[in-house]
């Protein structure tokens, strides 16, 4: 069609791009985004993704409520977020355009499926006129591509019904974007071949749609140029692109292998945690037992029963499930048995925003049980860090015979990033150190077993699963005597046991790394966060530094107990900024614990922080300090 020369079509080099695929829930946008991500990962880019979908499985087609989006940020350098705003929006219908156009910066590219812009769809999206015609998109570069009709046309001779043929249009969009950003086509074609093996018509229709999209970009002369994002310089090694939930599931298997404890997951399906169950249930050949319980309580109850029997007991859930599991967590604290509770946080209260992210369960994790019931808390900071965080949580649980909460969230659970694959042997070994026999001698010389005789260093009690003769014992939720572990109601004993349980958890501070500060000499502002804000804070800090300012970043993985040096670290700075996707939960803890005048930066809109928000907040603190310094100077 075109006889343009190679020079003219050679891709234009860019260092990074943010693309958002948006369409109806049934349009396959998550799949298109995921495939684009995988081919970019295989190409060697650094990347971060952000799937954003509605709670309804299929909201009415064409409506704003049904819009599902997948944002991917690819780059030739190290990046930490899925990008503040898309450079390119692929909108499969008017609703997808309307729901996403506000996120676009001026000059962004919009590629629309023009076939979907009919009166009916425009009306469903709430458009009075046609945005493609009324000039309202003049700030953007808009490409109108009849995706549905070309897709249908491409498989016409296959005998596929038009309605079915149309369903391949996500592959058309994927093909087009793959051309535009010079992605290799083979991984996607290969994936289609494998995925749709046995469904020859679908396989062929999808491949044709994908190629049609690719060729359309190449030949249509609509686009001035294609673009290329070169591979990023990553540390040598083998990589895979993982979601937080996959990384968590693999972390559990790793912890099971490194502790030689059989893994038992007791859980109840809940968004956005269910994928951990799905992943683990596939890997029975690792000896993994997954139990889909009748409810959240039974999920954790069975996990605790398994732990009593000497297994690595785990339960997974999201906020509403944590509410229900609280009583069993209290029992686990009283029994002093290892147990891992994974909370994939989502917007609350109540059912809240099931598919959107939030970090608002921190105080619940800290305090959400009756009585004095402390437990250790570990939080993952990136999708791949879920792997490491899970292993660390298991290590603490087993060593200290305690339930541990691992906090992740919807953003980490579904977001992805390239992850350098570890070797199993390099991961920390976890020693269950089961009781081997009697541990106490009575005055008359008889040997017996005291289930609550503590290790003087860790204050952990023995873990003595049934099966060993001579140390049969009973434990329960009633207060028990310090040492022998018999039911004990006396006040002095309760006081001692309460303080011992608290001291055991507090003592873990000596067994975790000091606060990890990304430090610049002379910085007076510290940004400290926890969980999934890591990427946005890091990006914001980089931007501030690029402007020539000094700022430090610290990110907490251990939230209970905090690292021993945290108070000293915080007191080194004139300003401490605490960004959180809640109404200020960590900042409250830091203020209470260390009497530091922390500045809270909060957001609860169901989406992660943008780097720009961080940048603005940090700069404001730096400006304030400069103004203070100036005032001091003038005053003196």
């Amino acid at each position: 069609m075109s006889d343009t020369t190679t020079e003219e079509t050679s891709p234009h080099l860019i260092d990074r791009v943010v693309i958002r695929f948006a369409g109806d829930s049934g349009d396959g946008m998550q799949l298109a985004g995921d495939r684009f991500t995988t081919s970019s990962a295989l190409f060697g880019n650094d990347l971060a993704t952000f799937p954003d979908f509605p709670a309804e499985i299929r909201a009415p087609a064409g409506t704003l409520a049904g819009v599902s989006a997948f944002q991917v940020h690819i780059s030739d350098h190290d990046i930490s977020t899925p990008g503040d705003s898309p450079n390119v929006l692929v909108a499969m219908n008017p609703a997808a355009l309307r729901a996403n156009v506000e996120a676009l910066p001026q000059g962004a590219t919009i590629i629309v499926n023009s076939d979907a812009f009919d009166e009916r769809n425009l009306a469903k999206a709430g458009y009075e006129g046609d945005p493609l015609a009324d000039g309202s998109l003049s700030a953007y570069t808009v490409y109108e591509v009849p995706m549905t009709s070309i897709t249908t046309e491409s498989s016409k001779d296959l005998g596929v019904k038009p309605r079915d043929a149309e369903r391949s249009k996500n592959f058309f969009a994927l093909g087009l974007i793959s051309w535009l950003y010079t992605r290799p086509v083979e991984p996607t074609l290969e994936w289609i071949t494998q995925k749709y093996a046995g469904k020859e018509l679908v396989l062929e229709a999808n491949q044709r749609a994908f190629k049609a999209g690719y060729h359309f970009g190449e030949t249509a002369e609509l686009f001035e140029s294609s673009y290329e994002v070169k591979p990023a310089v990553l540390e040598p090694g083998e990589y895979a692109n993982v979601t937080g939930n996959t990384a968590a599931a693999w972390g559990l298997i790793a912890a099971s292998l490194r502790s030689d404890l059989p893994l038992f997951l007791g859980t109840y399906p809940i968004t956005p945690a269910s994928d951990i169950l799905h992943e683990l249930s596939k890997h029975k050949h690792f000896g993994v037992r997954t139990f889909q319980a009748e409810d959240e309580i039974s999920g954790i109850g069975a996990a605790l029963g398994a732990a009593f029997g000497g297994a690595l007991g785990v339960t997974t859930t999201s906020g509403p499930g944590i509410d229900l599991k609280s009583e069993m967590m209290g029992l686990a604290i009283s029994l002093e048995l290892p147990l891992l509770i994974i909370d994939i946080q989502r917007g609350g209260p109540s059912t809240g925003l099931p598919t959107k992210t939030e970090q608002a369960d921190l105080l619940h994790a800290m305090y959400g049980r009756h009585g004095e019931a402390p437990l250790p808390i570990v939080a993952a900071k990136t999708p791949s860090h879920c792997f490491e965080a899970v292993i660390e949580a298991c290590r603490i649980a087993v060593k200290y015979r305690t339930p541990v909460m691992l906090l992740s969230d919807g953003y980490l659970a579904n977001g992805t990033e390239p992850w350098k694959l570890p070797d199993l042997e390099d991961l920390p070994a976890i020693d269950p150190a089961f009781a081997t026999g009697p541990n106490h001698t009575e005055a008359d010389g008889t040997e017996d077993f005291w289930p609550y005789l503590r290790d003087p260093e860790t204050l952990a009690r023995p873990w003595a699963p049934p099966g060993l003769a001579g140390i049969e014992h009973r434990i329960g939720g009633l207060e028990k005597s310090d040492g022998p572990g018999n039911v004990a109601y006396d006040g002095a004993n309760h006081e001692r046991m309460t303080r011992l349980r608290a001291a055991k958890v507090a003592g873990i501070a000596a067994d975790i790394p000091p606060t990890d500060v990304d430090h610049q000499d002379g910085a007076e502002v510290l940004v400290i966060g926890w969980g999934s804000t890591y990427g946005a804070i890091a990006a914001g800090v980089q931007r501030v530094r690029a402007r020539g300012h000094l700022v430090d970043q610290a990110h907490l993985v251990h939230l209970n107990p905090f690292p021993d040096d945290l108070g000293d670290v915080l007191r080194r700075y004139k300003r401490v900024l605490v960004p959180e996707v809640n109404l200020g939960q960590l900042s409250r803890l830091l203020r209470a614990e260390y009497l530091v005048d922390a500045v809270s930066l909060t957001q609860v809109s169901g989406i992660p922080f943008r780097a720009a928000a961080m940048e603005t907040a940090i700069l404001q603190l730096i400006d304030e300090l400069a103004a203070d310094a100036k005032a001091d100077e003038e005053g003196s």
Partner: protein
Amino acid sequence: MTDVTEAVPVPLTTRKDWSSDQEVRWCPGCGDYSILAAVQMLMPDLGVRRESTVFLSGIGCAARFPYYMNTYGMHSIHGRAPAIATGLATTRPDLDVWVVTGDGDALSIGGNHLIHALRRNVDITILLFNNQIYGLTKGQYSPTSEVAKVTKSTPFGSLEQPFNPLSLALGAEAGFVARTHDMDRKHMTEVFRRAHAHKGASFVEIYQNCNVFNDGAFEQITGKNVRADMLIPLEHGQPIRFGADGQFGVVMDDDGSVEVVEVASVGEDALLVHDEHKENPGLAFQLSRLSRGPYEPTPIGVFRDVDHAEYGEQMTDQIAAATERRGPGDFAALLRSGSSWTVN
């Protein structure tokens, strides 16, 4: 943990070996004492090891039971023992797991866990002490209390239709369902023995007298003088017949329901023959409905004893099958199971 004791023969024990050093703290005269004695006396007979035996409980008077058994044990939280037992029994098929519960614990706060443990056929033995009252909280009505019962929380009488525990268990398709009572140690012992021998979930309802808050609740059927005419012993393969002189029997009507008759009026051949191995739980269910409460002739013994695949064993089989098919888990391969790439 499991192989430690495999090679050693099961030692001979007595009741004393199965009794812990803890002082039993039920009210004097409580029916729980005789149940505890029956279990402690049965254990040496079962050929099992103390270290491989676990008693789990929830909350309530009955739930103190594990403290008194010199085995492994856990006194957990209200209603949740079947859930905890599911995790334990599923991961440790080598253990004998007993769940001791009460009418409030099993049928009110823990109803959900009970029916699902039965449905899944987890290999546990559930002893439900039914005293038709809340004892530990000092006398409120329970889900098995009769309609119009006046208690501290129902001064004008309870409005609630009680659960029939056996009907409920049979509705959940439990493989082993039985009833006994705290006044007859021999009967209890035999029922417990059968329950323990059954592979999969076993459910035993024990009529248990709470002499403080609901004294005499079962007196009309379990009292020594009336027992012969009021309790209907079920025996597999035998016509269902009772009464001091065997004068009463049970027949099945044309509509499938069962009723008590005088043998003289229908003839011996008309009596229903008990079949505890019937796959269809219909017969057992009808028998569980024969009595409307502990004031009418009431069947005791084993209502149903059928073998179904046990949950934990099936899970273990799936693991074995997956391991045979794919080889033991290879962690490096797992990490590379999606798309992976190499950066040089």
